[in-house]
């Protein structure tokens, strides 16, 4: 919640313990002052009051008095027992006092001047007995039905509220909604500190409960209508409309559980806390991709929550098994929770409120909405609901996975409930029909804050999970499925031929090289022979020379000897 509007310490507040309401009012009801809770029949006034009272007694150590003008104490106890409130035990512990004030006109004869001192005494006695800090008067307007003198009643009511204020009691006064004013008897005139309006509206046969703080003197408060829930877990108000954009962001990368898809994203996955839209026509594998993502998160030990609108959790588990993903064990280990509900079961607000409450309680790190296109309603409302859902998840750093069924089959990117601008990541699944077959392809339309592949990739779902294969992108366009395989086979054959050709050429070259080398060897051999012959001739010549000179020397020697 906003921190810049924290109340000044001058106005003490009494927390009601009603989830969300204390946020909307920045702390609860005005402490020590009366507050008016009004609304039509059956909109939860009494329950609101009882919850605030019981929480006060059990959680905040403020005992309370419930003064009922309508229901008897035992009826009241029985009515709220379904919410887990044991009023009798609280009464026995002295934390709660219940006083049923019966007002029956037929039993009362007015014979002159009177005042409501008896009521004051009863209330005062109950308050003093248990040291109460909180008081509920439900529904005090019943007095107007039982007593005829309006003048006295109004004067006494004014005195009563003054008395409550003087005693410093945090009081909740309930009032039935009247024509043209908040309550039938105009109680808002007397209780002017805090007025809360509960509403129960039916649109298209679907009921949505809403709460609005009409006024809160001396305090800031959320002014919108907030949807609220009453079910077996009590009452919870959901300040979903007060979501802001001031959330922190994470740099952490989260794997999608599909290696090929991770590889298409620059950092290897989506940012944690981002919202991811997976859109595609029927049977393109949206739920399977979401299942992979959930599986991956659960395997990392993160908690996941899946809101499914068209299938049951069991069915999704079973179907995911066919692609080798065992979600059942995550459900059993408590990491994964499915919340299945038909979209038509509640109104959008109630759906949102329910999801909000479940998210608050389960605290998942990944939330799946499958499919958001199932949420029916005026498109502006659906969009507003989803916007708040996205904000809600982002505000808590939860990664949101939204699947969306596209029934029109067009490739127009502007539709998808105008959601695209809310989404950080958008994976589009497209079935390509060609050559009598259908193959699944996906591409990343956007992934904020990261580089991503612009390729259309074919993916296959098998018992070993989802795997991405490179789609054939060639001059003839993008080929997928069998066409891709045929094309690839053709290319393989061509490549083989090319390889064989070059092999052959290499062998030729080798052969020629061998031949030349052989010739070189032969020439070298004949050169050697020639050199040898030359050497022989040379030595013979030298020998001859030597012999001749020797002979010449011998001849001359003989000549000189004869002289």
């Amino acid at each position, binding site marked *: 919640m906003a921190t810049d509007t924290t109340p000044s310490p001058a106005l003490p507040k009494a927390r009601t313990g009603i989830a969300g309401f204390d946020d909307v009012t920045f702390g609860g009801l005005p402490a020590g002052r009366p507050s008016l809770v009004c609304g039509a029949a059956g909109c939860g006034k009494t329950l609101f009051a009882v919850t605030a009272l019981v929480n006060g007694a059990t959680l905040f150590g403020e005992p309370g008095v419930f003064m009922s003008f309508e229901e008897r104490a035992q009826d009241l106890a029985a009515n709220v027992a379904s919410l887990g409130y044991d009023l009798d035990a609280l009464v026995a512990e002295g934390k709660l006092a219940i006083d049923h004030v*019966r007002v029956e006109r037929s039993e009362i*004869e007015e*014979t002159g*001047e*009177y005042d409501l001192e008896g009521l004051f*005494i009863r209330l005062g006695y109950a308050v003093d007995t248990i040291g109460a800090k909180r008081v509920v008067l439900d529904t005090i307007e019943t007095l107007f039905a039982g007593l005829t003198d309006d003048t006295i009643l109004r004067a006494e009511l004014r005195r009563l509220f003054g008395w409550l204020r003087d005693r410093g009691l945090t009081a909740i006064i309930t009032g039935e909604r009247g024509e043209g004013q908040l309550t039938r008897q105009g109680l808002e005139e007397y209780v002017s500190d805090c007025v809360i309006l509960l509403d129960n509206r039916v649109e298209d046969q679907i009921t949505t409960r809403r709460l609005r703080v009409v006024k809160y003197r001396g305090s800031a408060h959320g002014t919108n209508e907030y949807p609220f829930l009453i079910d077996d877990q009590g009452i919870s108000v959901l300040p979903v409309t007060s979501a802001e954009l001031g959330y922190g962001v994470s740099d952490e990368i989260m794997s999608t559980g599909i290696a090929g898809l991770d590889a298409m994203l620059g950092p290897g996955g989506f940012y944690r806390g981002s919202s991811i839209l997976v859109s595609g026509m029927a049977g393109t594998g949206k739920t399977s991709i979401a299942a992979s993502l959930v599986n991956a998160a659960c395997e990392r030990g993160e908690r996941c929550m899946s809101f499914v609108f068209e299938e049951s959790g069991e069915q999704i588990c079973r179907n995911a098994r066919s692609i080798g993903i065992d979600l059942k064990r995550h459900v059993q280990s408590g990491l994964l929770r499915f919340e299945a509900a038909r979209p038509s079961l509640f109104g959008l607000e109630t759906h949102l409120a329910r999801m909000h409450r479940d998210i608050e309680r389960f605290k998942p790190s990944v939330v799946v909405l499958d499919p958001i296109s199932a949420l029916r309603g005026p498109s502006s409302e659906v969009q507003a609901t989803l916007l708040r859902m996205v904000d809600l998840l982002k505000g808590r750093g939860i990664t949101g996975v939204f699947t969306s069924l596209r029934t029109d089959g067009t490739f127009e990117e502007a539709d998808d409930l105008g959601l695209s601008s809310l989404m950080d990541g958008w994976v589009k699944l497209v079935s390509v029909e060609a050559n009598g077959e259908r193959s699944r392809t996906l591409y990343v339309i956007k992934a904020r804050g990261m580089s991503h592949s612009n390729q259309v990739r074919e993916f296959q779902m098998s018992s070993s999970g989802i795997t991405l294969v490179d789609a054939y992108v060639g001059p003839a366009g993008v080929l997928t499925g069998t066409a891709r395989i045929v094309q690839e086979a053709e290319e393989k054959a061509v490549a083989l031929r090319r390889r064989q050709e070059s092999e052959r050429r290499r062998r030729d070259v080798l052969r020629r090289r061998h031949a030349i080398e052989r010739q070189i060897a032969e020439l070298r051999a004949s050169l050697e022979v020639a050199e040898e012959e030359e050497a022989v001739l040379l030595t013979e010549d030298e020998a001859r020379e030597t012999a001749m000179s020797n002979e010449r020397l011998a001849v001359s020697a003989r000549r000189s000897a004869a002289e």
Partner: protein
Amino acid sequence: MSDLNPSEVADENGHYHLRLYVAGQTVKSMAALANLKRVCEEHLAGRYDIEVIDLVKNPQLAAGDQILAIPTLVRRLPEPLKRMVGDLSNTEKVLVGLDIRPKVVIS
């Protein structure tokens, strides 16, 4: 609200057991007591008893008879239980309320 004691039920017919709830000695309370005594003396002489309960002293008794307004007169006997609020200044209404005079004219 049939929390009658057996002893009271056993009372003889025609006896009026009246309880007047007041809160302190206020003008309205005093007026109510005076008016009640006057009516009883006039119409029920000898067959009534009045019990005055001051809620300021005994606040715990207020819830038992479903007391809301002060003063309140409760006719415990004869049955059925009747309740009248106000200072009993409208004698006509008191008489009708106590069933001493049948309700003829609706005022």
